[in-house]
């Protein structure tokens, strides 16, 4: 019996591990993939789950609702029957009708489609642009970084909404696509800064040096090595960006710059309803609450993702 036996420093072979595991099966932990670990951490956050469920329901409501519930005529007016205008919630019109007799529920659904698509699409465009600029600025550094950050500063120095109002007077023609491009064109700055910071930190890692040593090209290093590791904060900011973009779209539409009435979007519905708020507050309340709850859910899911992806949180 030498010291290594007494200290139990024998080399670990399969024969010595297995009896240990048989005795204490509770200590065996099944190996989980990284995605599974993140998913489990997300699932522990009740608020995030509530937000995710609400979002799934909201998407179903807006996109499947018209076909399932039959409220698929957002522009059909019923001016013939005066009792049908400005009606409160009823069995036939669960959300009531507006001043020319349009079905508010159908408008809420179709408007929701518009608002959600605008929010998501502008987020994708902004993320693509922001990641593109941020990655080049962070990876190359030096003069490229300087120029790109100057460019970002110019965009940031102008008050966001003032710029948006001026531009929407110029460029939009009421179509969702123009609104998407407009919102994306000025919403990428936060992502660009974030990505730049991440790339600045990650380009010093050993795997980047290793990749360079075996001759990987710069673009390949940026997008195949560094970007997947920077993905966490990008995903979080993308989720929060959708909420922000939905709010931005509703502000634009409310002031008459984005989606024009009678085309439905939650913001334009609020604009129409604002004039009649003393008579029928439901017209404002319903799209307003839909916006509020949707953005709240996006924020909760984003925060849940942030906690789930944070590598510094101790495993619970």
């Amino acid at each position, binding site marked *: 019996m030498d010291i290594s036996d007494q200290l139990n420093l024998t080399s670990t072979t399969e024969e010595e591990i297995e009896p240990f595991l048989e005795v204490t099966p509770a200590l065996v932990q099944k190996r989980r993939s990284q995605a599974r670990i993140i998913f489990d951490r997300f699932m522990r956050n009740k608020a995030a789950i509530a937000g995710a469920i609400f979002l799934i329901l909201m998407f179903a409501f807006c996109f499947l609702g018209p076909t399932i519930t039959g409220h698929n005529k957002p522009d059909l007016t019923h001016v013939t029957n005066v009792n049908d205008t400005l009606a409160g919630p009823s069995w036939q019109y669960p959300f009531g009708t507006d001043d020319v007799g349009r079905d508010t529920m159908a408008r809420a659904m179709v408007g929701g489609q518009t608002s959600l698509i605008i929010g998501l699409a502008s987020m994708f465009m902004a993320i693509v642009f922001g990641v593109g600029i941020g990655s080049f600025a962070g990876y190359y550094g030096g003069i490229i970084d300087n120029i790109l950050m*100057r460019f970002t*500063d*110019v965009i940031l*120095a*102008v*008050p966001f*909404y*003032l*710029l948006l*109002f*001026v*531009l929407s*007077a*110029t*460029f939009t023609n009421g179509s969702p696509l123009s609104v998407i491009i407009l919102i994306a064109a000025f919403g990428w700055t936060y992502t660009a800064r974030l990505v730049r910071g991440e790339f600045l930190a990650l380009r010093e890692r050993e795997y980047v040096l290793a990749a360079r040593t075996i001759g990987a090209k710069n673009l390949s290093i940026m997008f195949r090595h560094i970007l997947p590791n920077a993905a966490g904060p990008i995903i979080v900011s993308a989720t929060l960006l959708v*909420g922000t973009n939905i*709010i931005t779209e*509703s*502000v634009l539409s*409310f*002031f008459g710059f984005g989606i024009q009435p009678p085309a439905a979007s939650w913001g334009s519905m*609020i604009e129409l309803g*604002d004039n009649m*708020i*003393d008579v029928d*507050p439901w017209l*404002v*309340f319903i799209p*307003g609450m839909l*916006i*509020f*709850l949707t*953005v*709240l859910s996006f*924020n*909760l899911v984003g925060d849940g993702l942030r906690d789930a992806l944070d590598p510094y949180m101790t495993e619970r």
Partner: protein
Amino acid sequence: MGRYIIRRLLQAIPLLFLLSVFMFTLIHLMPGGPDQVIFNPHLTPAARAAMRARFGLDDPVPIQYLKWLSRALVGDFGFSFATNLPVSYIIGQRFPATLQLFVPALLLALVLALFLGVISAVRQGTVTDYALTTVSYFGIAMPVFLFGVFAQYIFGVWLHVLPTSGMQTLGYQLDPFDAFIDHLQHLILPMCVLSILFIAGWSRYMRSSMIEVVKQDYMRTARAKGVGPVRLLIRHALRNAVIPLITVVALDFGTVAGGATITEGVFAWPGMGLLFFQSLQARDYPVLLAMLMISSVFVIGFNLIADILYAVMDPRIRYS
């Protein structure tokens, strides 16, 4: 430090030039011009041409820009197309109204955010904390104009206690004291609506900053030396936790020239924001340009102030 300030100021100059070119181009890309919107539709073509020449609309855009720039550098922003008054006079008239709205809103938001953030941090994990955090989540998720519209409905239409728009009640000639009270009544709603957004964001920031500070070793040392809880909180924790918040507040203060736009639009408060909407409608280029430039100057200026404040308050930060 002084060299840092000078360097930042020098960097700001080309930025402002770039901005002015950028915005001048944007504004001139807008479809229609003042002659479609403001000019008397009954003008004969000759008179119309003369008016266009008088406003310099026939010059090529770069020439217009240079003319504008040469006057703007000496502070003369020209005359409004719509009202023919000097632009600086118009803006000077509207700016105090925006200040009346913005400064009290910001101060109220600062006090409340500090208070709520500290309470939330000190009672971390309790019901109070969860309640306050939830409320601040709500505040962030609700767009400002929506909050304004709801507030207008609740206080103006349903409860019928506060006026919903404008700065004073029209049509009455009130004696000074009543006029003052009337003015205050008109001010309350927009001011509170404007504060709520700031409170929601800042209290979260304050809370996380406070939690970070309380974990530090010097807090434990002070407590071990026998410092009482209140003094500990105020003298040791708060002073350090407030530093990042003050910089955020300074940055948000920089949006004063353009930031209340939405609130002023919803409540028809006659300040800079409403002026912006009206000028946008009327394609009143001089006023629009002047407003955009002034807002940018404010934003850049307060950015610099925020950085300087941070260095002043935290002696560990030293700019080269």
